[in-house]
């Protein structure tokens, strides 16, 4: 029911966007919303997986920024695409394993652990960006020295050094998205496999049982630690997919250390709007995708409607979240 309402909301916003933009083309608006939302759907799923297991993960944004920056760094060093992918994937898995181990096996508080990881990863992303900027600056100066006549004045070189260096780093030109790097096939695979897993597997039932009540899950002889560990590991893989799709398919290869800031809150909000209970035990895979879609639709209408400011997107999404929280609180407790 909730998925239907969210779907109709997106359609309605697309129609309104077509109208307010003056073109009347709702289909184009829908495509824009889809293009904006699709790379972030794995991120929403990552948050939903952890939340439905009864935990919370604030690290996706930091991981998102770090993995993107690492991809750029390794690409600019000149590594082949496959090697870059493997290195970044290994990094994502390592982060997931560390978080899962610390929280599930060592008993660290999820909120604090993932918050700490988020700060650390943002810091690491910024460090990579600084290194990239520095190397790019040196490279520019070297080129200028080579190109220009050896008799160029020191004042000219100083002026060159003072030139603002672009903050946005980009992938080398040879990294153009292939079909398997596009969002649509990945999102389709994730949604189908996620829905099948949710409704057809014992593994999902055990996952949600741990989210419902950890003590009861232990009495039912479920391996609570393994299930929590696995949730963090899967979440890190989903963040990796999301970061790659966002970079290649949406940003066109551009990235900064701040890319992804506050996205963890978007992911959590989308999961909750889509029907995932913040206390755990409920997960709606399609709902999460539609929750991201509603957020993207609200952003799109704010951009297209000249009388609205992009900040109004947050206002609208916040109000929607409050309504959802109110509706969820009315759900009958058993």
């Amino acid at each position, binding site marked *: 029911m909730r998925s239907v309402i969210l779907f109709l909301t997106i359609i309605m916003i697309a129609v309104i966007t077509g109208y307010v933009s003056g073109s009347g083309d709702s289909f184009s608006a829908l495509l824009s919303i889809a293009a904006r939302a699709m790379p972030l759907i794995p991120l929403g799923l990552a948050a939903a997986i952890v939340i439905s297991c009864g935990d919370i993960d604030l690290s996706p944004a930091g991981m998102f920024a770090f993995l993107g920056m690492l991809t750029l760094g390794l690409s600019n060093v000149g590594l082949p695409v496959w090697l870059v992918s493997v290195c970044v994937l290994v990094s994502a898995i390592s982060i997931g394993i560390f978080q899962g181990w610390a929280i599930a096996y060592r008993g660290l508080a999820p909120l604090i652990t993932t918050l700490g990881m988020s700060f650390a990863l943002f810091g690491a992303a910024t460090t990579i960006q600084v290194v990239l900027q520095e190397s790019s600056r040196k490279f520019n100066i070297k080129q200028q020295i080579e190109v220009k006549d050896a008799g160029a004045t020191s004042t000219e070189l100083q002026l060159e050094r003072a030139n603002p260096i672009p903050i946005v780093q980009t992938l080398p030109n040879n990294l153009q998205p292939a079909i398997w790097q596009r969002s649509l096939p990945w999102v389709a695979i994730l949604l189908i496999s996620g829905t099948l897993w949710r409704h057809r597997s014992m593994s999902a039932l*055990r996952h949600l049982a741990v989210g*419902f*009540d950890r003590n*009861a899950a232990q*009495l*039912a*002889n479920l*391996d609570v630690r393994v299930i929590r560990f696995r949730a963090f590991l899967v979440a890190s893989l989903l963040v990796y997919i999301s970061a790659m799709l966002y970079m290649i398919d949406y940003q066109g290869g551009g990235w900064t250390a701040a890319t992804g800031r506050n996205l963890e809150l978007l992911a959590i909000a989308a999961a909750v709007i889509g029907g995932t209970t913040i206390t755990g035990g409920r997960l709606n895979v399609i709902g999460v995708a539609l929750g991201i879609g509603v957020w993207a639709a609200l952003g799109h209408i704010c951009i297209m409607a000249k009388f609205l400011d992009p900040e109004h997107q947050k206002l609208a999404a916040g109000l929607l979240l409050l309504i959802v929280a109110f509706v969820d609180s009315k759900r009958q407790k*058993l």
Partner: protein
Amino acid sequence: MIDFPRNEEKTILEVRNLRFRYGSRSPLILDVDNLRLLWGRVYSLFGRNMSGKTTLVKLLSGLLDNSYAPVCVRFDYVDYALPEQRRALQTAGLRVCHQNDPMFPELSIWENVLLGAPGSGVGRSHLKHYREEVSRVLPVLSDNGTSPQFSDPLGTLSGGGRAVIRLLRSVLWSYKLLLLDEPLTNVDPNNREILFSVLREHTPEHATVLLISHDEQDHDSFRKCFPEIRYTPLFLRQGKLFDRNVEL
């Protein structure tokens, strides 16, 4: 670690020199020299409140870390003491019906039963059989004349109905030893009857059952479920185990 003799073929569970306390300075909760359960027997362990019954069940099911005593429990061929070994116990055929296990009220009745399945999962043909078994019980759990459905949340059942489902979750999947910790608490006579019939029907001849309760009526009903020859009473007093009712 205590070296158990391997030639005792008929022993399903053996506990020796079990001394348990909840901290190095807390009083001794359990002081059991020897507890030996045999294949195919049914035992009822009677003990008053605070006699250490639930602690014993938690220890036997691997929920408590017996770090203040050496490993001293053997189930079938698994020696254990640490919670990490609980999965191995389930795989080896130990099922436990815990006292006041809340289960999952928001999940459906069938999903709650499924959560008792062994970790490796169950084949489709077996699932169909188990579903039929549950469907035979559901109509008698009705309080208001309408039979509960598989997909109904467990929370819609009465306390007695939940107790029956809790027992079903333990006995439906094949087992060697079943530990029942106060399974009849807050169960009315009607559901008590259903619960015992479920237990009788799902206890194979080779399986061992240990009922733990403070209520003599529970023990009487339990004894009537099984042939007298299989039945053995046990008594727990202030953490010590006796084979007859003694006053300390």
